[in-house]
C-alpha cells in the first residue's frame, strides 16, 4: 500500500518512517566519516576532501531552505506535507554530519545564506512544489555521484554515497507522488 493513498497522515508518516529504518543514522555516518580523520589528526586532512564536503554542505543547506519554502507555501496537503518535512529533516541530518566532519578535518563549514533565489513565482500548486523538489533531489544525486570518486578518503566517499542513496530515494518518492515513473532508469549519471 502506498503511503500516498492511506487516509491517515499519522499512519502514512509511521509507514514512511518505519520503511526508512534501514538507512544509516546520521550519527553512524558521522562516525564512518570522522573515524579516520580523527585518528590521523586534523592536519592530515586533504583540502580537496574538505572542499567537496563544503560544496555538498552548501547544497544541503539550500535544500533545507527549499523544503522550508515548500512547507510554508500552503500548497502542500497532508500527507505530502509530512513527507516534505521528513525529507527536510534528512537534509538537516546530512548538513549536520557534513558540518561536523568539515570541522573535524580542520576546515570551516559554510553557513546557510541569508536568502536563497527560488522560483517562487513558478510554484502555484502542490505539483509545482513537488516537481521543484524532485529537480533538486535529482541534481543532488548527480552531484554526489560526481563527488564520490574525487574523495581521497574512502570513508568519506562511503559516507557521501550513503547520502546519495537517501537523496535518490527522495527523488523516486517525489516522482511517485507526481504520478511519474518513480525510477526512470537503471543507472544514474
Amino acid at each position: 500500500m502506498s503511503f500516498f493513498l492511506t487516509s491517515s497522515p499519522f499512519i502514512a508518516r509511521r509507514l514512511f518512517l518505519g520503511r526508512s529504518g534501514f538507512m544509516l543514522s546520521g550519527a553512524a555516518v558521522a562516525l564512518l566519516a570522522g573515524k579516520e580523520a580523527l585518528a590521523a589528526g586534523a592536519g592530515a586532512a586533504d583540502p580537496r576532501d574538505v572542499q567537496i564536503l563544503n560544496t555538498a554542505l552548501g547544497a544541503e543547506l539550500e535544500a533545507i531552505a527549499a523544503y522550508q519554502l515548500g512547507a510554508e507555501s500552503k500548497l502542500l496537503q497532508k500527507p505530502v506535507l509530512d513527507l516534505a518535512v521528513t525529507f527536510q529533516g534528512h537534509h538537516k541530518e546530512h548538513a549536520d554530519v557534513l558540518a561536523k566532519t568539515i570541522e573535524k578535518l580542520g576546515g570551516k563549514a559554510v553557513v546557510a545564506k541569508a536568502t536563497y533565489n527560488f522560483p517562487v513565482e513558478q510554484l502555484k500548486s502542490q505539483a509545482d512544489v513537488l516537481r521543484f523538489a524532485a529537480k533538486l533531489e535529482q541534481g543532488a544525486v548527480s552531484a554526489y555521484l560526481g563527488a564520490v570518486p574525487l574523495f581521497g578518503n574512502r570513508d568519506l566517499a562511503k559516507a557521501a554515497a550513503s547520502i546519495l542513496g537517501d537523496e535518490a530515494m527522495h527523488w523516486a518518492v517525489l516522482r511517485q507522488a507526481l504520478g511519474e515513473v518513480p525510477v526512470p532508469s537503471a543507472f544514474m549519471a
Partner: protein
Amino acid sequence: MSRVGPLIAGAAALCVAVSAGAAPDALRGEQLYARCQACHALAVDRVGPHHCGLFGRLAGSVPEFSYSPAMKNSKIVWNDKTLDRFLAQPLKMVPGSTMTYDGVQDAKERADLIAYLKHVNDTPECAKAPEKKAWAKKP
C-alpha cells in the same frame, strides 16, 4: 513551463548547421542539465553561479557571487572549447574550484549540454538573468 517547443526548433536549426550524426542535441542537453540543478540555475545564482549569459563571460566574474580564488584568478573566458574542457574534468582545469564534480566524461553529452546552454541564452527565462537586466538598463 516546458521549453520543449523552442528547443525542438533550436535543435532542428543546429541539425541543419552540422552533419546529422554529430549534431549537438540541445533537447538532450536540457535533460542532461538536470544533473547540474543541485547547484546551478539558469537565471539565478545558487550554490554555483547562474548560466544565462555564460558564453563570452570571464570566469569568476558574476557580481556578488562568491567564487573560489582559483576560479576568480583562472582568466578563463567561457566558450565552446573552454567549457568542453572544464565540463570534462573541472578540477583538472581549475584545481581549487568549488565545483567538486568528477565531470562529464562523454564528449557528446558535453556537446549537448553546451548546445542547450547556448540555446537557452536566447529564451525568455534568461531575460530574467542579472546581466540581461543590466543590459536592459543601458541606453
